[in-house]
């Protein structure tokens, strides 16, 4: 049994010790917004925030999140109240197939929380761990840039 904060709520859950955080989220907690694109930390599709830092959930063993704070796409915003990043991605054409989108949104959130005025190079750096095959990244970068204060 592990206890951790998930999207602002404390949860307790049984999990086999060899399961990854990604598997726990997707299979046990039915939070399928976090995607598995490669399973070895190369594509960034499974990015969630752990204590505010972007991590590949496929590389984190589930028991390691005991007592920590995990944020996933499901906690980012809702239909009623979209996160500004979600709105900006929609408005800028930053979403094509959408498979990489949840992970990139989470990394973008972490970036803007740390640095509210990122320049283009900093944005590129912040999302460089994510593979996107559809967009060529430009409209994603523009969507993040538009939220500079």
């Amino acid at each position, binding site marked *: 049994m592990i206890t951790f904060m998930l999207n602002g709520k404390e949860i307790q859950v049984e999990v086999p010790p060899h399961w990854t955080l990604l598997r726990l989220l997707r299979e046990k907690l039915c939070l399928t917004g976090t995607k598995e694109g490669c399973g070895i930390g190369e594509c960034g599709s499974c990015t969630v925030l752990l204590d505010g830092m972007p991590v590949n959930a496929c590389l984190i063993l589930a028991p390691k999140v005991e007592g920590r704070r995990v944020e996933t796409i499901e906690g980012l915003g809702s239909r009623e109240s979209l996160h500004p990043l979600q709105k900006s991605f929609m408005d800028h054409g930053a979403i094509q197939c959408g498979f990489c989108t949840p992970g990139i949104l989470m990394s973008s959130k972490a970036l803007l929380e740390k640095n509210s005025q990122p320049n283009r190079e900093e944005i590129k750096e912040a999302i460089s761990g994510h593979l996107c095959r559809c967009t*060529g990244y430009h409209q994603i970068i523009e969507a993040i840039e538009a939220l500079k204060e």
Partner: protein
Amino acid sequence: MNMRQVGIEIPKVDVLEKALGEAKYGADLPCQEPLHLKVLRSPTSHAKIVRMQMEKALRVSGVERIFTAKDIPGKNLVGTIVKDQPILASDRVRYIGDAVALIAARTEEAAEEAAQKVVVVYEDLPSIIHPEEALHPHAPLIHEKGNLLLEFHVIKGDVQKGFKEAEVVVEETYTTTWVDHAYLEPDAGISYLDEKGRITIVCPTQNVHYDQKEVASVLSLPLDQVRIIQCSTGGGFGGRLDVTIQCLLALAAFHLKQPVRIVYSREEVFQVTSKRHPLTIRYKSGAKKDGKLIAIEVDILGDTGAYASYGGTVAIRSAVHATGPYQVPNVKVRSRMAYTNNSWSGAMRGFGVPQMAFAHESQMDLLAQALKMDPIEIRLKNCLRVGSETATGQTLTASVGIGETLKKVKEWRDKLSLLKDDSKKPFIKKGVGIGSMWYGIGNTGIANPSTAQMEIDPDGEIRLFTGVADIGQGSDTVLLQIASEAIGVSLDEIRLIRADTAVTTDAGATSASRQTYISGNAILDAIKNLKHSAIQEASQLLNIDENDLFFENGKVKSRTCLTTSIPLREIAKRCAKILKGEGSFDPETTKLDPQTGQGVPYATYAFATHLAEVEVDTESGKVSVNRVIASHDVGKAIHPQNVIGQIMGGVAMGTGFALMEEYVPGEKTSFVNYLIPTSKDVPEVIPIVVEDKEPTGPFGAKGVGEPALIPSAPAILNAIAEAIGQRIYDLPANLERVLGAVQKRKLA
């Protein structure tokens, strides 16, 4: 015409659920206690299957059943045109990754453990690695009919005479390699029997109706007993035009009568899905002193790998596009596609045209160099125009925007200050290169229809039915825009019902940049018929002659009595029935002559020119693409932001094709060693949209999906050649090749 829905910036209709993480892709689909499927695959590239032993595997706790070729009730062969690929190999495997058994178990772990315990005894057969070797008269046969899948020719004029008249001739050989689609979503899906007992498969795909035919054939079922539903699809780029998991899922659900689920690993996706065809292109071009092309002779040899897939299509399309977007009076092209024991090649964004563009654009620069001409001037001198005749004898009558894309790029180029190498970093060399292309919209010289329906029910709901699979490129939005513009109601008033074989009809594949043009036109036809039936009904309701009525902005109106007007919804309500319009469209093409390739392969073509600015580090071999000016004639941009999105993504994929992407069968199995561009590898892109309207296109539209990618690699390679003074003839231009070229230049 003042348009309200076409040409505007609106968020795509599918992006809200994607932004929220709610969209369900293959591995996200809810499924009640499914059995998990795992495929056992061949570790060797060519072998006889001597025997298989399942006993140990069947004893693994949780294993329900292991399927082999013997369990396939119907035809154990699939393929888009030539059906030669088994779902499960029965007696022979032809590439590393061929499926030999399918395990169904209660957990993924049990399925995997069982897969390791199946014993397969193989007897190795000689493997053929090179297509030249495959075509040797004494080569071992990979398929009984022989190792040549297809040979195709395009013959026009008299090349011998042409080369005699030529004042400059250049001849070179170009090679390209395997490229993986690298769509981000690994193939995954579920299958179950629906409430009507139909085998139902929900999965990512580019063509539900094709999948349905393949599954029905494999299971020997009537079509209506198979239902395919497309779920959110994490990219395609051609890789999901062939069936991937569909028949495996269906086979298991058919026998087990309970839900089943399969999720490919990334390694499996690399190993077993199709790749871009490696082509070897021998290209001879002749021109007059003024730069006018007079003859080309081209020989293309492609590697289709173990199975046909789209190999024939690529051979034909490569040949048809061999001239590039130029008028050439004398043309001789031979294009052959051979089987080998390599990974099978299939459709990938451009069907051979990206490879051909690398060759014809390198040739154009070589001619310009030999003639001391400006690379843009030589292209402008030769480019197709309205009235030009193509190599297949087709006269182009409208929407030939290649010249305009060149002029737009030229304006940019002329503004660029002369590139000067940085004196502090003499090892960094700068260069600018141009690449142009043409691309025929839709399938090549074959029937290519789409169908659609538009209806309104008495409760006022307006529905658009289309079989088109949106794979992220935005067809759902574009087709809704076309429908709402044509019928005169706002986009959110139309309910879209899509890509489910039980409720939609065949729209053909999301491929060949065809859905905006072809399915867009099918929808316009459906709306024309819906309007007609609305006018007929209104005529009865209002007791006004049909000829006095017309349709405008969602209403039927009278020509003579200006105050008479009845909304579409009102008509449906008052006549208490569903008003429906059936639509179809098949572009006007002709079959190509089997000897000479003459005919009308496509009803319309897209055109584009890219300019690339590069920096080459001559010490490390690293090429940085700093900027690409991407000028595209799309006919009409229905959704401009989407068009730009395609261009941006195409340039990124083209940069990967140019510089880094090289799949090696049996070796590259992950993103660790198969690299695709990241945010730090892509150039700045300046997109330029040229709208030379296509009279037969919906609101003038053509297509952009594949054209977006095609000119990038040629422009980048031409820029590298300018930067280092030495041309690279083999893709990708990776560090080793660039350093090799730098070395060659030093020795020269």
